[in-house]
């Protein structure tokens, strides 16, 4: 009895996951599926149709298909291309959010006149320093050279440069 109930629960859990995944894949395309892609994998065919909103990615499909084709990834299914586009967008958004937090942290640390602070708050700019700090957590090491050695005073302190 216990075995049966736990089996039933795991089946229900799996059905919920399938339903959520079907809904998600359907939202990537503008159509109503009658048989979901996970059903095809698992061999289940009795499933009600799910209607959803159409979701798109900011990364265009042609660009994603170009890079996927360049690396040998073949898939005729457009939904999977959209899925990859959404995943990439999420990654970039996460990186940009971390960089934004770094930028805001730096602005709050520098306490000057009220006027200067307001001016800085208005202009949130993606800089190389913030980006390298944010990317370090993702395993990407970006190091930007601080100056170009094109003149003898390059890289010196401001005081010594005035001299």
């Amino acid at each position, binding site marked *: 009895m216990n075995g049966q109930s736990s089996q039933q629960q795991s089946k229900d859990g799996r059905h919920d996951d399938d339903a959520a995944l079907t809904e998600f894949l359907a939202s990537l395309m503008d159509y109503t599926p009658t048989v979901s892609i*996970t059903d095809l994998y698992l061999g289940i065919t009795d499933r009600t149709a799910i209607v959803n909103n159409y979701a798109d990615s900011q990364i265009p499909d042609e660009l994603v298909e170009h890079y996927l084709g360049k690396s040998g990834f073949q898939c005729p299914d457009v939904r999977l291309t959209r899925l*990859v586009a959404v995943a*990439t967008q999420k990654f*970039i958004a996460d990186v*940009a959010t971390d960089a934004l937090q770094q930028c805001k942290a730096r602005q709050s640390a520098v306490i000057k006149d009220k006027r200067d602070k307001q001016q800085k708050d208005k202009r949130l*700019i*993606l800089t190389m320093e913030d980006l390298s700090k944010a990317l370090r957590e993702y395993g990407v090491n970006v190091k930007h050279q601080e100056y170009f050695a094109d003149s003898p005073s390059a890289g010196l302190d401001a005081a010594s440069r005035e001299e």
Partner: protein
Amino acid sequence: MMGTTSLRQKQQQQPPLDDDVVTPISESEFSFTIARVAVAQICQSVGFKGAQNSALEALTDITTRYLEAIAKLGAASSNSNRRTQSNLPDIIVALEDLASVQGFPGSSDIRSHSLWTSAVIKDLMKLVKYRDEIPFAQPLPAKNRFFQGAKRKLLKHRGDNQRWYCNGGSCRHVPSWLPPVPVVEEKDKGAEGKKGEVKWECWEERGKKNGNVGRRRWKRSAIMKIFKYQEREGK
């Protein structure tokens, strides 16, 4: 700040698309420029007002590498399961591998449980459900405009290679991952039958008319006609 442009300017900056551009742009530069616009849009939606050029280019480079990494991992996982075309589990495996650097809930028993319960996919589902979509800033050209020069003529007739082959085009026997079959253009429409058959006598007559000067030319045109006939026969 030196070298910063506002993100709005970046979006309105069009990548060179016109035919009369003097300097030819390579395919990789073109796709990089488009990716840069997309990344600038994403940064703007996150909250940035401007970006340093070098930072934006670095982020775009990372975007392209991320896309290629997903593609390589997905293709590798499908190939190791004796398949050439990738499917949903392959993508989930690829995304899990890439997300394992940062870590996600459930990464300790990775792939031992069902792939459908992976936290990677669940995060994506939540993102798509609760986020407003913003369309791409620039109208993109048709896919065949990526290439410059002679190749463009070939691709103009084919359009999307995969769809042509998959939808029962004339070259159904050719696998879709091969480059497109060149369309040979017919120049002289002489004595041509309904199905493109041209009698050998007509060719000889034509050769005699030209005084056997253009013998090579009409021989080549004969071969072209045969090719075209074979192509049409496949329909």
